[in-house]
């Protein structure tokens, strides 16, 4: 290699490698989380997961009505 010859910038390579490692770790974590969700809910369907939230909403509505009666 001659002095003055063009060399590639090492920084982006280092950055890409670091980002890859971090990305792999977070994807592994996300997969573990999804696995746990499937175990607990016995489903991976978004709609079925959302059903739980709807139940919570319904409970809140009942509580609100009770509050209104109490206030009136």
């Amino acid at each position, binding site marked *: 290699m001659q002095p003055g010859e063009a060399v590639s910038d090492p920084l982006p390579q280092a950055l890409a490698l670091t980002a890859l490692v971090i990305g792999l770790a977070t994807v592994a974590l996300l997969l573990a*989380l999804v696995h746990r969700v499937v175990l607990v809910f016995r489903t991976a369907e978004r709609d079925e997961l959302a059903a739980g939230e709807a139940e919570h909403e319904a409970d809140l509505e009942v509580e609100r009505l009770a509050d209104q009666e109490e206030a009136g």
Partner: protein
Amino acid sequence: MTLSAALILPWATGVLLVALDGRRRAVGLLAVVMLLATLVLLAVLMAGVLADGSRDVVTGRWPEGVGIVLRADTLGVAFALLSVLVLLAATAHEVIAGVRDRTFPGLVLLLAGGLTGLFLTGDMFNFYVFFELAMTASYALSTYGGGRRQLRAALIFTAVNLLGSFIFLLSVAGTYRTTGTLAMQDVAERMATVDPNAALLIATGFFIAFSVKLGLFPFHFWLPTVYAGSAPAVAAILSGAVANIGAYGLLRFGAGIFPVELRLAAVTLIVLGAASLLYGAVLAVARGDVGETLAYSAIGQVGYVLVAIGVGGPVGLAAAVLYSVVNSLNKTLLFLATGVRGALVAGAFAIGALSVAGVPPAPGFVGKLEMFRAGIAADSPALVVLLVVGSALSVVYMFQVYQHRFWRPDPAAAVAPSPLPLRALTMTLALLILAAGLWPEPLLALSNSAVDTLLAGRPG
């Protein structure tokens, strides 16, 4: 020296504690002691920074301009102190109540390490690495409790924030492509010569990434489910410590690196902040659940921070720093208080509620006062009216929650009150907040000094 120690201590002990069973009392206590030690180190660092100005450390003894720079300035150390204090309160709360998950103490320490690192770095990519360290720890923390709601909350939190991190990384890559450097100080200098369109695109990427963290309207969609669904201590950690990343990022990147773009987008920021403020406050009034009211209140409160950043200038930015600090303390106290029952707790909750509403002598009053000053500095009566409306709504929803929670015979009243140490801890935190409201000079001086260093760092 203190700088490196403050970074290494929580990280090393975190790695160690993850391997131990955190449900044992000794492990939990060790975590509390280590967080306390980190807090002390940061306080020493803060004293040094206030006395002799910011401190730079180039890692690995590389020459200046080659190695990664760690920088401790008032803004960074203030946010690091605040976050570690919040983590300390939440961990002490959990240790007294009984830790239910073996990894909890270790994860909190790793989170502390990540947060301290990102507040004390002077390099954008290094910021990303610490940011991911902190976020990964908080993804794992958000499953704490292990119930169905926690799990759903954790899945949403992780998915949305991974997307945010990805956008952040894209912007970091864009910064390197356009400026050829990642050291924040050099980026700030060279940004002026970058093509304005490219710079605006990069700045928007950073803005979106931090807004997702902070839960600003219209990036808030994940927040209510997560804050209301996670365990009280985790909700306190997420809203009091992790959300600080967003506020700090907007200040450091917005005001420190992209001042031109910030000025360009000032009106948009104020409008978004105002929307966040009103949306959060109105929905908080409409919800019945304590956790959800607090979550929507968090969306509303960060609206204030964005409005202040939009107003800009020394007055606006100082108000933003002060408001973020006060808000994070309030949210920690309130979320922790929702997990405690019995006497004294109502008093602690009331102090937090008064602080959110901005009633003296709580520190929220000082925060609101600075916000009004920012509104007057912007010469905008509409803004001042908006701030008053927001405060009025927060009085309504906070006392709605208070009444709901503490004034009527609770169907769950048969539940035994929490142990006295737990209630005492909540009260101590409340008294600390009250003290900050009664003697606000240190906080005010700190936020002014933080903004001075932030503005001094950027080119002409």
